[in-house]
């Protein structure tokens, strides 16, 4: 939305019952109410969204990164209604959305894929035969998959049938498509992805990699760029592979080609995300480019304003995702009301934030609150900057992984760049924070009891705006 404003484009937000007070609604030039909080009545309801676009005279739709962002039917509907869908053509979304089709396309372009099947299969006997051929451990995946839904690791034939059944039923519930297939399970891989941008004239440029290995429940929580394992030679080969995948699929607009990298630094194509990624800001930090602006330019038919040689990367960026969840209880969701918050600020700090003091975190949707991004000259400075930013990020009212993220960033393993998708299980199983200021916290409790509640005349949330910097800069100069 900020990009649109910079470009002189008016914006229309759509919202559901639960999101009446959401930040995107408050910031848009206009907002249209869709309906009930249930996604099928609002954010997944194609008819309602198209109607909202027509009613406001919108010319284009940016699908964001959830809900209908990777739905080919939605893109197709926009195309047939004469609206510009800010993303790839519906045909490309459809082909890349089916992971087995994507695997076939990619193999045709000579990019390595993880050994496994190239079409979905429902007969468990055939699947079991394939599993033997691939060799255990195998990974069952949903053909329509994403976000870890319908995924199972099977280490021995005994558990195979049961795992297939549960993976398939989970996939059916999540994607209305129970098709599954098998891949070789790579142990301790890294998740490295390449941002690509492509115009309608057939130019494809990659904007370097992002390392997204630190995950919980198969969802990323810390991303960084450059990847700590990257060498110029490997970057060149993987970047070329990402561009080849985009060209083979006829890609247009911004997308992400995901790879797994094994311990010998062999890389394998994983999938293409046909949308803007949650973690795109770190790429913007190191390249100085605004990816949303590129998306809008490409969608209006303009060619990319740069070539591969023009794109330069500088420094190091890290993103932490701040969810409403309890890191001490398996990252279980922790909805509630944001009683008070204070965002970190300073050089090289960006917080893409969807909450404010008084905001009720809805129980209906994914509990992401904000994305905290830092940029610095090199990796070790970026790590220190992120720790500092996290320590100055105050959110009262819901549990967040902030204490956990601080400990991850302070850890030896992270400093070494020893990150793989099992990082949390390996290094932070059963984690508890070091509550070293327990006495001070208890003192604060007692002082809070002793002092009559400060009830300023203005709303409580505004109290902090009247502070002088000298009061808030407690750690200044330390």
């Amino acid at each position, binding site marked *: 939305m900020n990009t649109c404003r910079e470009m002189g484009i008016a914006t229309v937000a759509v919202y559901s019952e639960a999101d009446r007070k959401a930040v995107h609604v408050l910031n848009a030039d206009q907002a249209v109410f869709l309906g009930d909080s249930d996604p099928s009545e609002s954010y997944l309801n194609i008819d309602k969204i198209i109607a909202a676009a027509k009613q406001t005279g919108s010319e284009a739709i940016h699908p964001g990164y959830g809900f209908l962002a990777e739905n080919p039917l939605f893109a197709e509907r926009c195309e047939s209604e004469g609206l510009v869908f800010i993303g790839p053509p519906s045909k490309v979304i459809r082909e890349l959305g089916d992971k087995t089709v994507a695997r076939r396309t990619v193999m045709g372009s000579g990019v390595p894929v993880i050994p496994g099947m190239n079409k979905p299969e429902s007969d468990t006997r055939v699947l079991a035969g394939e599993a033997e051929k691939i060799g255990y451990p195998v990974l069952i995946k949903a053909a329509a998959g994403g976000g870890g839904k319908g995924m199972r690791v099977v280490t021995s034939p005994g558990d195979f049938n049961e795992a297939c059944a549960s993976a398939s039923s989970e996939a059916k519930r999540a994607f209305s498509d129970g098709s599954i297939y098998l891949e070789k399970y790579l142990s301790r891989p890294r998740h490295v992805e390449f941002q690509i941008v492509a115009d309608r004239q057939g130019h494809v440029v990659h904007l370097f990699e992002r390392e997204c290995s630190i995950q919980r429940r198969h969802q990323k929580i810390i991303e960084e760029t450059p990847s700590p394992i990257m060498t110029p030679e490997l970057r060149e080969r993987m970047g070329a592979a990402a561009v080849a995948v985009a060209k083979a699929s006829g890609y247009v607009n911004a997308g992400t080609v995901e790879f797994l990298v094994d311990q010998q630094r062999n890389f394998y194509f994983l999938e293409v995300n046909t949308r803007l990624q949650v973690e795109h800001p770190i790429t913007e930090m190191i390249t100085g480019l605004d990816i949303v602006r590129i998306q809008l330019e490409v969608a209006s038919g303009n060619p990319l304003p740069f070539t591969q040689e023009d794109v330069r990367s500088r420094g190091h960026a890290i993103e932490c995702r701040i969810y409403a969840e309890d890191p001490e209880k398996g990252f279980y969701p922790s909805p509630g009301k944001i009683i008070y918050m204070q965002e970190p600020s300073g050089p090289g700090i960006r917080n893409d934030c969807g909450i404010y003091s008084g905001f009720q975190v809805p129980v209906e949707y994914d509990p992401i609150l904000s994305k905290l991004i830092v940029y610095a000259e090199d990796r070790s400075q970026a790590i220190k900057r992120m720790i500092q930013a996290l320590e100055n990020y105050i959110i009262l009212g819901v549990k967040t992984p902030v204490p956990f993220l601080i400990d991850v960033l302070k850890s030896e393993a992270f400093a070494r760049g020893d990150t793989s998708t099992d990082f949390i299980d390996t290094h932070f199983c059963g984690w508890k924070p070091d509550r070293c*200021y327990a006495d*001070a*916290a208890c003192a604060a409790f*007692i002082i*809070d009891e002793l002092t009559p509640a*400060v009830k300023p005349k203005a709303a409580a949330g505004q*109290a902090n705006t009247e*502070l002088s910097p000298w009061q808030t800069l407690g750690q200044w100069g330390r």
Partner: protein
Amino acid sequence: MDYRLKLDENVISFHAEKKGDHGIALSRDGRIVDIEYTAISEYHQYLVVDGCPLNVFIARDGNTKMVVIRGISYYIGDADAPDSRSRGKKRDQVMPQEVTPPMPAVVVRILVSPGDSVKQGDSVIVVSSMKMETTLSAPTDGKVRAVNVTEGEKVMPGQILIDIDRDTEPQNQ
């Protein structure tokens, strides 16, 4: 003044003495800590603990207070305060008989109807919070007395979703 505070599962005893308008002496196990404090806002205190300055953020959240110091959160309650959720129910003496969600959630599916017999551990209701489904189970053997919610309803911790009359003669003992 004496305080017994609960932090995680630990109960810590403090003796606090006010010193002037902005000071407090806190003793714990015979050790005394001098603290100066300035209330910056309702949620923000500036403390100097034995000479070490700390910005402390605090808010009451239900029965406890959430305190954040240098990125680490602490949940502190008064150890002697009655648990508001079980007020009047004497939870300690009677086996729990009701089903309540662990966090704010939406009811997805109700798996039982009034009059149904259930065994301890049977699934009775599925709630969803932020796209994660949780199945709640019967806390005891018994008969469903009432289902107090409908599918799609928003529910809060402490709210009783399903009442179960406990079997008077437990069969498994």
